[in-house]
């Protein structure tokens, strides 16, 4: 029961990718995540489907990896990706000389980059700063990290992998200098567990330092905080980047129904990685720089602010930790530290999660003497289809069921599995993002949803304009009736959910966002009196 070939710790895109790759190669894999999937850095970035152009000048290797993976993801994860195209714009205060170097570097890395007339750029993307003096068209897009991770998890499970979320690794089981398994605690039930495998993979991102320490291994990591802002609706339909040396807040990405600007970059202490707040200074910087890309941001409603932590890894040959590796880092602790059965996969970026998984599983295969080729670059993820585009599915669905039309964006062709046969199932729980009762039930039953925040990650419930004002309560009730939870648990969940929503709203609470906050507070603290409910527990 508890014996596997590989245990993967960490349910971000990388861990999910490793689990899927293992499963597709017939390796028995167990994925363990202390929270929900995609809760760390995976779910806290731009959602930019990099063309690689951003790295072309300074980091050719990353740029080449990006463009390759970009093309692969468009194919295997069509429903998670939107082909928006991207622009690198030069503003009057930037140098046009950089543009020439930029185009040259892009082309050298195999990225198509075409300088276009600024007027054409404005026609392509009307929200772009009209004072631009140069523009380059690149194959950027957007990718939804929640969907991408969920699809990898789904496929891993379909191929026999086991996935445990809300499960914390307490210790690594080490026998004669070899990692042979993990001891765990379920964070919801408190239940203890013990799982064994020949190889344990550390895919914990910034938290990987702590896991490695449990094996007595030191990895020098630097947590780098990146803050981002979400705007209430799509400001731009084409990714807008600043054509200069990569700097703060110079990427504006349209993702599903919103637009994201980011990021800042600052060092944070390890103890803050679990609970990060966006500071007023970061908000200020993001808005100031963001409005240089698209002036409309200055008067667009900001839904929320959030921050993620990039796991920067100090190069092994630099004990000072100052020289940082930006690329993919696969550490075989057997050769590096003399600890067998333990591999760390880190560095890299969302864009290269699949490649990171491929390298990791190649190493696993080598260690386990398995001869199986990686197929993740060809095998489509569940929900993706060569024949049916999301747009077509939406068009046909919109007249029959509003929820279904939106669901195709979230689940690809898997949306067909959502029950919309009755009025009860078609009823919308979340009106902003059009999430139906049927979709909530599908997510709870098929996508490993434990609470409202998980549900949000799978469905966008509560990610719209009102940030869960009406839908949180409705969704809680639907979930409770599917899962038969007691109402105290449901209320605690509800309270946790709106608290989490407010955490993102409060750094940007002015204008309409503050009005929304007042209504949110009035409803949940006033009308419902949830703080009172909390006291009773």
């Amino acid at each position, binding site marked *: 029961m508890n014996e596997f070939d590989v245990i993967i710790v960490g349910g971000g895109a990388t861990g999910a990718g490793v689990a899927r790759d293992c499963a597709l190669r017939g390796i028995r894999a167990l994925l363990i995540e202390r929270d929900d999937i995609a809760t760390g850095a995976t779910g806290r970035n731009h959602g930019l489907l990099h063309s690689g152009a951003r790295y072309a000048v300074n980091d050719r290797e990353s740029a080449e990896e990006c463009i390759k993976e970009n093309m692969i993801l468009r194919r295997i994860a069509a429903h998670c990706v939107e082909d928006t195209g991207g622009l690198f714009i030069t503003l009057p205060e930037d140098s046009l000389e950089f543009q020439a170097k930029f185009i040259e570097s892009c082309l050298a890395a195999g990225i198509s980059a075409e300088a276009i007339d600024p007027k054409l750029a404005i026609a392509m993307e009307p929200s772009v700063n009209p004072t631009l003096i140069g523009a380059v068209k690149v194959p950027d897009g957007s990718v939804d990290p929640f969907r991408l991770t969920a699809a990898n998890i789904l496929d891993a499970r379909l191929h026999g992998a086991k996935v445990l979320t809300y499960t914390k690794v307490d210790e690594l089981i080490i026998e004669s200098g070899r990692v042979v398994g993990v001891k765990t605690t379920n964070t919801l039930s408190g239940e203890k567990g013990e799982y064994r495998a020949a190889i344990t993979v550390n895919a914990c991102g910034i938290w990987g330092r702590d896991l490695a320490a449990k094996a007595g291994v030191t990895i020098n990591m630097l947590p780098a905080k990146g803050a981002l802002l979400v705007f209430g*609706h799509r400001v731009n339909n084409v990714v807008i980047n600043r054509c200069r040396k990569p700097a703060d807040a110079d990427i504006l990405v349209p993702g599903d*129904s919103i637009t994201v600007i980011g990021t800042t970059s600052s060092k944070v202490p390890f103890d803050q990685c679990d609970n990060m707040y966006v500071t007023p200074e970061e908000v200020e910087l993001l808005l100031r720089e963001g409005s240089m890309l698209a002036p409309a941001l200055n008067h667009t*409603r900001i839904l929320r602010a959030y921050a993620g932590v990039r796991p920067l890894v100090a190069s092994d040959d630099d004990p000072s930790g100052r020289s940082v590796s930006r690329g993919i880092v696969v550490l075989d602790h057997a050769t590096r530290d003399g600890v067998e059965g333990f591999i760390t996969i880190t560095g890299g970026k969302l864009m290269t999660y699949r490649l990171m998984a491929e390298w990791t599983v190649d190493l696993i295969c080598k260690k386990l003497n398995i001869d199986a080729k990686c197929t993740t670059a060809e095998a489509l993820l569940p929900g993706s289809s060569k024949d049916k585009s999301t747009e077509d599915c939406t068009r046909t669905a919109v007249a029959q069921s509003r929820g279904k039309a939106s669901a195709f964006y979230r689940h690809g062709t898997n949306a067909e599995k959502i029950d919309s046969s009755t009025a009860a199932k078609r009823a919308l729980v979340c009106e902003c993002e059009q999430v139906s009762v049927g979709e909530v039930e599908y997510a709870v039953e098929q996508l490993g949803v434990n609470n409202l925040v998980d549900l949000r990650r799978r469905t966008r419930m509560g990610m*719209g*304009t009102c940030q869960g004002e009406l839908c949180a309560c409705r969704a809680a009730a639907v979930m409770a009736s599917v899962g038969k939870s007691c109402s105290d648990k449901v209320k605690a969940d509800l309270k946790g959910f709106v608290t989490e929503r407010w955490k993102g709203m409060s750094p940007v609470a002015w204008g309409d966002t503050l009005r929304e906050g007042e209504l949110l507070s009035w409803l949940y603290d006033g009308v419902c009196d949830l703080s009172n409910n909390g006291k009773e527990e």
Partner: protein
Amino acid sequence: MKQYSEHNFEQCTKCTVCTVYCPVAAVNPLYPGPKQAGPDGERLRMKSGKFFDESLNLCLNCKRCEVACPSDVRIGDIIQSARIKYSTKKPGLREFTLANTDLVGSVATLVSPVVNATLGLKPVRHIVEGVMNIDHRRIFPKYAFGTFEGWMRKQRKAQAQFAKQIAYFHGCYVNYNNPPLGQAFVKVVNALGYGVQLLENEKCCGVALISNGFIDKAKKQAKSNLASIRKATEAGLKVVATSSTCTFTLRDEYEHLLGIENGDVRENIDLACRFIYNLLCDGNHNLQFNPDAPRIRVAYHSPCHLERLGWTQYSIELLKLIPNVELVKLDSQCCGIAGTYGFKKENYQTSQAIGESLFAAIEASECDFVATDCETCKWQIEMSTTKKVLHPIELLANHLS
């Protein structure tokens, strides 16, 4: 001052107030309702036009959602603009006939006795339903024999005698169906010392063109009307209309739905009741009423577009000034006709269901007449109740000494 964004829908806090006041959603489950069709849907349509849903055509553009909205969101405009931008339904013969009020009117007024008699016949109405999808239960407004413009041409000299002048935007209804309302308006305005002129070239305001999907033609007519209104404005003439919908279209819909700039003349376009009431308030104008006019009970119905203009109170205050008129103010609600909306077979039931409680209130009011500023409300109420409907200006004219 409250405008934070060029995208007005962002001010929506999802408070659901609009959903309470939508007359269509209350009776027709096929209509998504103002919140979903408006701000919620707009956000998704910005992601992809595929989210446009033809059921938005069920919106009757009453704008009651806008009046109700505590956040000043132009919900109705968002819905109508989405129809204009995304709808792929092509208007047909029915839409052409209903929309081209001036073209159809100018033909019909030439042979009005025949038209009126024919459209009054039940078999003909059934044929009209079969061919045109216009509901056979719907009674058409009668056409006048000869137009108001024709009558005005004969008045030109007399009107020129007045030192002060205004321009009258009479609208298609006064011109083709009800010249006596225009004549009443001239009588009242003359009594206040103003002569009445017509615009150099008045065309239908275009409200029916917009709602039936003839946007290019509506734009053309809007530009033409604005050119005439600009000329009148430059000549120092206030432009006054008796129809609340014409006024609303000229002032607001041109800019909001057709994107045609009218800010330079907007404040110069006024509604008859407001214009007259303001004159009476300035201390220099007076109307002499006939003290012996019969005592009547009048129930006032406020049309949707007048509510949206925010000027209902002017009509009410004006009616209150008439001696021997006992005024009952009906609760403000949509009558269901919405111009040409209620004529369409698929909307007939919705249309009548919406008006149901208004009709009951009218019957219960025990009034002698209903008063309203909108011609299509008049058709609907006269068809659906036992009462005759007059424009406040007609009541005013009738009671002048």
